[in-house]
């Protein structure tokens, strides 16, 4: 039998989850899942490592028009593919489409804000935009460098004017295996 990957569903999933939890609890902190992603295959290994950690047949996802990524995620997790406006997890392999995806992603309801999308965005652009971020998980105000794509994604999120607790949570992934999160309560001010 052909073995596609060496990613352990038990131990590597746990390691990725702990990194992800650290990133979600400490927004904009970069953590690395390289060691685990290297055990997956193909160009989207960090995406697949996250999918293996979070998705199963109880969840739905959308990977836009990336058929290869969609097929891989279905093969590995048995998650249900669906439209981006109803998906629990949205994988944006093209960061330039993130703005459009955020505009249509589900944001939960006031009663059930957890029924909102988690948007996972691949972004390898240079991090040249400086932003100031504050909110839950951040000690005071921090200045960090993010990419133009990430900044546009956050601007689109803000333009949606979600009434908190509604909103979307974003995970940014680089091919190097670095990830960071921008959950819905994190406020960002751009600086030129």
């Amino acid at each position: 039998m052909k073995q596609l990957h060496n990613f352990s569903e038990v131990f590597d999933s746990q390691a990725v989850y702990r990194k992800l939890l650290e990133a979600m609890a400490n927004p904009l902190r970069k953590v690395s899942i390289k060691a685990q992603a290297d055990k997956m295959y193909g160009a989207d290994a960090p995406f697949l490592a996250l999918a293996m950690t979070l998705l199963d047949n109880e969840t739905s996802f959308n990977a836009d028009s990336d058929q290869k990524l969609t097929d891989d995620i279905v093969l590995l997790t048995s998650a249900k593919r669906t439209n981006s406006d109803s998906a629990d997890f949205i994988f944006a392999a093209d960061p330039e489409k993130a703005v459009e995806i955020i505009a249509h992603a589900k944001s939960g309801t006031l009663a059930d804000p957890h029924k909102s999308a988690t948007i996972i965005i691949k972004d390898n652009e240079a991090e040249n935009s400086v932003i100031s971020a504050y909110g839950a998980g951040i000690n005071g105000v921090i200045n960090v460098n993010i990419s133009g794509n990430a900044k546009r994604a956050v601007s689109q999120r803000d333009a949606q004017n979600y009434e908190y607790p509604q909103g979307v949570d974003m995970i940014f992934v680089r091919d190097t295996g670095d990830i960071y999160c921008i959950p819905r309560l994190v406020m960002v001010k751009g600086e030129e």
Partner: protein
Amino acid sequence: MKIKRNEEYNYGFLDEGSKKEIRRSTLKAVAIPGYQVPFGSRELPIGRGWGTGGIQLTLSLIGPSDVLKVIDQGSDESVNAVNIKKFVKLCTGIKTTTDTHKATIIQSRHRIPEIPLKNDQILVLQVPIPEPLRIVEPKEEVTKKMHAEKDYAPIWLQLYESIIKYGKVTISTEYPCTVEDRYIMNPSPIPKFDNPKLNMSECLYLFGAGREKKIYAIPPYTRVESLAFDDVPFEKENFKGKKCCLCGSCDTYLDEIFNSETGERYYQCSDTSYCREVRSR
């Protein structure tokens, strides 16, 4: 404690599907601090109400490099704490400790350790009744709507009535607090003394209610304010003039111990690990 991992159990007892669901719920709970995320609480070889929510969180978190500490009412050696440690060790083989500094995951019932926790530590709290509005509204359907509409008037009224009747707020444990100016949250049955430790803490707090099937969280550096009126500020327990009979600490949460033979009352640190550390200095 020499217990070898039983390989017949899946690592961390729960099946991977269950862990995934708990992990997804936990991530949403962290993204929406104070909001109770429903989850499919699993059966465990321990009765619901004995810490199953906390155990499920711990089992979904734990990995081979973790060091676990379990405390019950501040004590590392109580029956609940010892048995939870044994159970987790049996299905993971991880290291356990009583030293708060060395633990990466601390599971607790009714207390937050005296030592301020660090950013790389996670405190898992066992919660019997996660709903702070349950005391004023019995129906889950209604409390969910109240949270959605931020309708917290009844719980404020309850505090007001307590002040009118007794001259002070009489809630001693499970004192409700507001998270990031949005959700009113039950901090689990920790004493009021521990409520300020939740505010702008360095560590991540996770709350698990197995019987009620809810998970909620407070990420680091999150604003958590105990409910209070402008003219009646929040007050925690006051141990003025009292000190621990073992270590002499006078700034910790103290348990009162009554000697029925001599009629003497004395006090002892509730956090046994901290008390031991002070004595060893």
